[in-house]
């Protein structure tokens, strides 16, 4: 039960955090100018967005949950489960960000999940 809760926090916290960061960046809008000064300005605007803080907080939570579970479980058990983050990411992108995930993209995401699992087990 403890493992299941932590794995849920790792997958949903990590993915949810990145989705919240994506939401913050979408609010700022497409970046066209990549000069260091403009990137600094974008960073200042980003840290003023509540979604950015929620995202960083969720990612930190997922990171500490990963550290905690790795202190008693093997990497070969934990990391393949985290490969589910890619499926959760596509699902979250569709539901929470309104992205159109075509069958080809779903197939690609599925292959990435399988490939990441094999890389981590190998």
């Amino acid at each position, binding site marked *: 039960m403890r493992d299941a809760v932590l794995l849920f926090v790792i997958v949903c916290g990590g993915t949810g955090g*990145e*989705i919240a*960061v*994506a939401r*913050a*960046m*979408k*609010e*700022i*809008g*497409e*970046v066209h100018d*990549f000069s260091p000064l403009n*990137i600094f300005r*974008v*960073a200042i605007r*980003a840290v003023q967005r509540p979604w950015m803080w929620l995202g960083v907080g969720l990612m930190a939570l997922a990171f500490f949950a990963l550290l905690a579970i790795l*202190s008693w479980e093997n990497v070969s058990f934990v990391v393949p489960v985290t490969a589910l*983050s*890619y499926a959760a*990411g*596509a699902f*979250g*992108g*569709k539901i929470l*960000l*309104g*992205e*159109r*995930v*075509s069958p*080809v*993209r779903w*197939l*690609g*995401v*599925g*292959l*990435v*999940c*399988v*490939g*990441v*699992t*094999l*890389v*981590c*087990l*190998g």
Partner: protein
Amino acid sequence: MNREARLKLKTSVLIFLVIMFGSLGNIFLSKGMKRVGTFSSWRPGDVAPFLAHALESGLVWIGILLLILFFVAYSLVLSWADYSFVQPASSIGYGVVAVLGYFLLGEAVTSTRWIGVGIICLGVFLVSQTPARTTEQS
């Protein structure tokens, strides 16, 4: 160059930077932490000195700097591209780490891992055939 092609090129360049910063950042951090030694105790009195010792390593600082650049590049590309496009596309970093580990560090890479890298590449190829942005800009 039309708008769609420019968007695709811009997205590809940023995802390339995400992959390189992320992969190299993890490699430097890993090398640095291995030199620092094994983390063996969670007691608050032991964690702080361990972290202080880790931050004395130049490799750890290079790793941290590269991972900050990774986060900046990742956030920038998400300002226009779909999350469901960027996230799987950046998974090719697993392949980059395997290739860098094999050619630069002389690490053994098992056949299971190479098969996994191949499947990731196929998955990323399929994702790259879909439009990078499917939502309207606000």
